[in-house]
């Protein structure tokens, strides 16, 4: 009779025993290894462009606050969104302070108000007078059901960059441009090539471009949601806007062409002069144009966006970031102090402008002479001042968790109206309005039905 040990060992092959031993050993090892809790305040950011300034700012903070050290971590934007939502849903570890971009914040506001994973800063901001000190529209993307959950990092006003070299060569005077109609009329000679064919277009954009669609919609005074975050896709003003914008993209009066904002091919096309104008927010100037397309230095100038109607708004907003404090943070007081230091400090505001071209939302900083410095890239224009002048006019934006759905549905209508115009040969905006309205009514119903099934939103459509 075999010994019990030999019988037991005979149950499995040597290789299988090796696997069992490894499994048990590694499990014990993992159980015994203690992961030290992160030391100090954890600060997550998603934008690599913000990192150089923040490294310096954090080093200065750590020097002054040895007891409240901050640890900066750069995380990919999509990963940050997933880790943020995992934390809100399941309590997985998250930073004390985190920068969140507008397009990824929506899901955080989709549940009950008391389940939003950020600290409600409304009362604190009011007590410290920050609601008045900070540009009011800049709070709107971070406000859900009347409560504010973040300090805005920026304003991101949008201006029109145009090819000053081409304009000067053609002897065009742009000083009287006030509306889009003016702009297209004055710049029209630039479109024609020597053989009479279209050589270049006047503005960057294409029907499926969500960015341009939203920027121009906001500028035109349209909105996808009302103040109570109810969808308003099918407002008559929106239908008129779509009908007009569709004629930019098709027909005999087409003025726009596609030119990708972020790819090498787009940069190449811009540099080669395929479009005269480009919608640019402050961050695009500081983080994309100047560092990535140096060949355009001295060839571009900025002007306020031409208005849709005489006397209308001359700017819009594109993008946005906030600094939020996680509700699960064990050090909310220190996190608040750090957040104020990072976002409200005047020296920081100027460093942000000089480093990234971004205008601070803190109004008291807007008088700083740094904003008046001439910028050789834009033919010596005071770029900072041009953006600051429009900063207080940026439109309000929604924080609805359904904004991405709404803008996609809205843009689909623009695509369809553009195709309808091309198919039927109707290029008069007035003739396109009924079709735009019909499509927007359907889109409104779709978005409403999606919002309507969310039982957690206290505001129902």
């Amino acid at each position, binding site marked *: 009779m075999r010994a019990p040990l030999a019988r037991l060992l005979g149950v499995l092959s040597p290789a299988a025993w090796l696997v069992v031993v490894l499994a048990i050993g590694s499990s014990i090892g993992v159980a015994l290894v203690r992961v030290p809790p992160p030391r100090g305040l954890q600060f997550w950011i998603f934008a690599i462009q913000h990192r150089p300034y923040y490294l310096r700012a954090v080093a200065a903070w750590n020097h002054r606050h040895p007891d409240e050290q901050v640890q900066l971590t750069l995380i990919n934007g999509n990963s940050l969104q997933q880790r943020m939502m995992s934390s809100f849903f*399941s309590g997985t570890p998250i930073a004390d302070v985190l920068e969140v971009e507008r397009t990824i914040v929506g899901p955080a506001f989709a549940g*009950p108000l008391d389940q939003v994973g950020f600290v409600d800063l409304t009362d604190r901001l009011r007590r410290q007078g920050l609601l008045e000190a900070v540009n009011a529209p800049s709070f709107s993307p971070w406000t859900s059901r009347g409560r504010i959950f973040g300090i805005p990092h920026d304003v991101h006003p949008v201006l029109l960059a145009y090819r000053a070299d081409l304009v000067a060569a053609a002897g065009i005077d742009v000083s009287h441009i006030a509306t889009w109609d003016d702009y297209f009329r004055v710049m029209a000679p630039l479109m024609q090539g020597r053989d009479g064919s279209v050589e270049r277009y006047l503005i960057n954009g294409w029907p*499926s471009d*969500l960015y341009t669609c939203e920027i121009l919609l906001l500028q035109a005074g349209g909105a996808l949601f009302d103040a109570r975050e109810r969808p308003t896709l099918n407002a008559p003003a929106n239908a008129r806007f779509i009908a007009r914008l569709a004629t930019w993209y098709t027909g005999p009066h087409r003025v726009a062409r596609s030119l990708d904002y972020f790819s090498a091919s787009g940069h*190449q096309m811009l540099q080669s002069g395929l479009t005269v104008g480009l919608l640019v927010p402050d961050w695009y100037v500081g983080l994309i144009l100047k560092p990535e397309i140096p060949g355009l230095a001295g060839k571009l100038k900025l002007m306020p966006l031409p208005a849709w109607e005489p006397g209308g708004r001359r700017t819009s907003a594109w993008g946005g970031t906030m600094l939020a404090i996680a509700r699960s943070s064990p050090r909310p007081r220190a996190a608040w102090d750090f957040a104020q230091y990072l976002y409200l400090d005047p020296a920081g505001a100027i460093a942000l402008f000089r480093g990234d071209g971004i205008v601070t939302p803190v109004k008291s900083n807007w008088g700083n002479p740094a904003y008046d410095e001439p910028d050789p890239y834009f033919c010596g224009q005071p770029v900072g001042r041009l953006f600051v002048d429009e900063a207080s006019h940026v439109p309000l934006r929604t924080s609805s968790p359904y904004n991405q759905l709404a803008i996609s549905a809205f843009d689909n209508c623009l*695509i369809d109206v553009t195709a309808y115009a091309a198919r039927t040969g109707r290029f008069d905006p007035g003739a396109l309005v009924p079709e735009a309205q019909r499509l927007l009514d359907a889109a409104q119903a779709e978005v409403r039905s999606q919002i309507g099934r969310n039982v957690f939103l206290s505001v129902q459509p």
Partner: protein
Amino acid sequence: MKSSRPHAAWVPWFFLGPFLLGFAIFVAWPLVRAVALSLEQTYGPGVRVFIGLRNFEFLLRDPLFWTAFRNTVVFTLGSLLLQMPAALGLALLLNRPSLRGRHWFRLVFFSPALIGMVFAATLATLVFEKQTGLINYGLHALCRRWDPDFPWLEDYLMTSLLLAALWLYTGFNMVYFLAALQNVPADQLEAASIDGAGRGRRFWHVTLPSILPVGGFVVLLSVAGSFQIFVLPYVMFLRTGGGGPHDRGLTILMYLYKTGFLAGDLGYASAIGWVLTLLLVGLVLLHRRLTRGEEI
């Protein structure tokens, strides 16, 4: 001769135990929970409200779900129509002993299946870029009238997805067909040849019936895989908001992921998951019925 000693009754359970435990914890229980979850609306796992069958009721009239469903069906059918003939054709070609370097070619065609899916999808995205993408650049170089700004990743999402999947999976399916072709009875082929059957008739009457069970299995795998396609479109269409204009690139699993893991509505995501499961079970049953339970 004396038979070996019968095992004690507990021995089979001892060996089955680890699997059964794992299955119960990681498969059976989550499935049961998913049924319960599909009757709730949630905001993450912590906040939930019982809503009965409203998730399923909404699903039936949810245009986004039906768009995702339609896209997935189009992708599945397109994949079958493109990949199966291509895989079989390659297998027939690379099964010819007279072809020099066929082992090398097999590796080349199979190699896309060896690289990570995210990496492959990223490569595909670059290939379909405007101006600088290999396809637009190449087509423009071949034919000057081709627009180098052709918007593959904006207006032709399904076409670009099908082409990317063709590149990725044809070699993988080819291997199955190659294995099947190597089991085609040589004596039958020889007999058919002696009887005067040409190459086409030999293929139609001998080769095809022999590889049909494997073909059916490959089709089933492709259908199941296509219905669960996620990473490839998720990475390729990340820049266009996940689904692109009119959600032309949205698949069922992408919609499930967005609903459950980004919006936190695990209840609705479970409902979508169950509908997908029932669809796949239905397809498997259909496959079994069509093949009359024929074994590979």
